[in-house]
């Protein structure tokens, strides 16, 4: 066990912590509601090279691993940055693995984000695609083939107002023309890998969201006095925050382990990924709820920032699924599929 980040990893973390603190204020987050996307921030963010960070250097990327991307996702989540980092970066890696250099190059240079349809098009033609509201193209598994669907000219997505102000949208995936990138077993395997990476980086973002929720609650509890004492000196306030801080720390370790295992303990990686997703989702939801209530009436007012965290905490994982269904998937991965 060695939890030390390398110097390069520390640098990445600090760089993006600074970037989001400076560039993605919570005022910006509010301004970007309900769409959940800042074209301006996106542009600046793209200039850091973060979108291709997980793409091999030979293909024009940064050549880092998934763990470095998880560090960036965590900072994204901490500041609720209105940029679809997770979707674009995962999709870029998918293009790289598929050896689609033209599409990749276009994607890395393109102004518009890339998105990934998380479910099979054949099963869920109307699925809401994360980042679909702002993406220039969507990668999807359709009829057994991995296809890249470009935004149809003149078509505008319908972006439903949603709990987490996430830029989700349905695309005409079933009928739109698409460039076939891979077929057969390989298409399926690479698609599955991309979905797993999306889940892991989303879990990392939820860790950042959960940690910042706890911090906001603790800060408020230190400063707010009632009955002649800071409310943080009442165990009714302090103890739930302590539980949340513990869970968020656990979630971070679990996400890191699940990412690490993809290369180093591949036989445990699928179960760990399901654990990480479910636990990060629960921990973030609980942390944001406890933090909101720590703020008393102010937590319920839109003026305070904690409500921004509260809404996203449950919305981000739900783009994929109910966390309790992920526990059933975990059981499938641990014990084999259910025969019922």
């Amino acid at each position, binding site marked *: 066990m060695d939890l030390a980040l390398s110097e390069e990893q520390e640098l990445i973390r600090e760089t993006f912590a600074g970037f989001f603190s400076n560039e993605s204020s919570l005022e910006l987050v509010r301004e970007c509601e309900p769409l959940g996307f800042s074209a301006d921030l996106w542009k600046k963010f793209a200039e850091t090279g973060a979108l291709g960070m997980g793409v091999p250097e030979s293909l024009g990327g940064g050549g880092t691993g998934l763990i470095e991307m998880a560090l960036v996702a965590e900072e994204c989540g901490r500041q609720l940055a209105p940029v679809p980092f997770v979707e674009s970066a995962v999709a870029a890696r998918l293009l790289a693995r598929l050896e689609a250099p033209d599409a990749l190059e276009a994607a890395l240079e393109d102004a518009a984000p890339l998105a990934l349809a998380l479910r099979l098009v054949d099963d869920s033609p109307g699925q809401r695609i994360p980042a679909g509201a702002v993406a220039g193209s969507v990668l999807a598994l359709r009829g057994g083939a991995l296809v890249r669907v470009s935004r149809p000219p003149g078509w505008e997505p319908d972006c439903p*107002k949603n709990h987490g102000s996430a830029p989700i949208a349905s695309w005409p995936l079933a009928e739109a023309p698409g460039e076939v990138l891979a077929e057969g077993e390989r298409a399926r395997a690479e698609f599955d890998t991309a979905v797993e990476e999306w889940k892991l980086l989303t879990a990392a973002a939820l860790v950042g969201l959960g940690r910042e929720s706890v911090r906001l609650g603790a800060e408020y509890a230190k400063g707010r006095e*009632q009955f*002649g004492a800071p409310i943080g000196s009442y165990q009714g306030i302090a103890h739930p925050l302590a539980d949340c801080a513990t869970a968020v720390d656990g979630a971070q370790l679990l996400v890191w382990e699940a990412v690490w295992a993809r290369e180093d303990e591949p036989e445990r990686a699928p179960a760990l990924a399901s654990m990480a997703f479910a636990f990060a989702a629960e921990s973030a939801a609980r942390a944001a*709820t406890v933090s909101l209530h720590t703020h008393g*009436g102010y937590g*319920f007012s*839109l003026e305070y920032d904690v409500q921004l965290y*509260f809404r996203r905490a449950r919305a981000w994982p739900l783009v994929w699924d109910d966390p309790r269904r992920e526990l059933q998937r975990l059981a499938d991965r641990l014990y084999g599929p259910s025969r019922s």
Partner: protein
Amino acid sequence: MDFRLTPEAQEFYDEVCAFFDEHLDAETIAREERTGDGFDRAFHEALAERGWVAADWPKKFGGQERDAHEMYVLDQEFLRRGCPRNTSVTTGLVGNTLRVVGTERQKRELLPGIASGRIVISLGYSEPQAGSDVAAAQTRARREGDHWRIDGQKMFTTGAHLTDYIFLLARSDASGGKRDGLTMFLVPTDSEGFEAQAVPTLGGERTNLSFYSGVRVPDWLRVGEVDGGWDVMKVALSLEQGVGFSGSAETLHRRALEWAERAGRLDDPLVRERLARTALNAEVGKLLEQRAVWMTAEGRPMRAEGPMCKLFTSEALIEDAGSLLDMLGPDALESGGGPTSPAAAAVEFFQRYAQGTAIYAGTSEIMRSLIAEQGLGLPRSRSG
């Protein structure tokens, strides 16, 4: 032992349903979902015309002498239907307080106006620095001849942009203990120096920050004794006993079940468990509420029964709304509505709305402390 509504309450319930069917139109609900005002004058006046704004009052004040059982039926129907409700609750509460501690003049001049729907009233207890610790209020009241001069600000003055009076807790003497030197007033909202500023909330309700800059209030609008405001507050707070949200839980359950049926997911054990849990919690909440109602109606002394209603129904609503939102999976992302929106969006609404129920009229932490102290005899866990 009988768990049915009393015959009178059952009869009243049928009337109430017919009334809501007739007067609560989709437009009123839509306006409420858009504005979060918690008040609709036309509906309120229709309610008054029917004699139900102060249905529990003596006939001489324009009431119908309805008992606690009947009042409960009416209140829960507001919740179940997502009807604008906040101002009705606060107005009734202040009216009932005036009936106990008001002067003859106050009763004569104000109660008929309340009962007839012309006068509506907001609560002005909390301040930016005095939330759960409401007795720490700093808004100043200084006597100037036959008037009082009020300076300060109040937080969470729900309805203040529409109501006629604020039932205000103010500090008239800062020299003594926290609960000494408080005095209560009815501050007319058309006074010079009064201002209400919108505070939008997560649940879509609008509340207000209200400002008082040299507001002049005639002494006859003082409620209770000078420096005796805490005694008035005790009366007012005791009337809040037994507030609960089981009607919201029922609606949440109904809407989530509707989703499960339409989505073809009603055979999934994880779906069934969460729906059944919500139905169970709604039933327990209703029973706790009905117990408090029954005790009120019978004049039985209450200890922790009131706070138990508030604590259980709000915490269960938070738990169930979150768990049902998760249950929806990606369908949970449809939002922006109210309790009558399409089923998935209604569940999303309750996930936001539920949070407020554990905050206003006393946080869950305060409720737990009251139950521990009054119900279990444990020592106080906070000073003051």
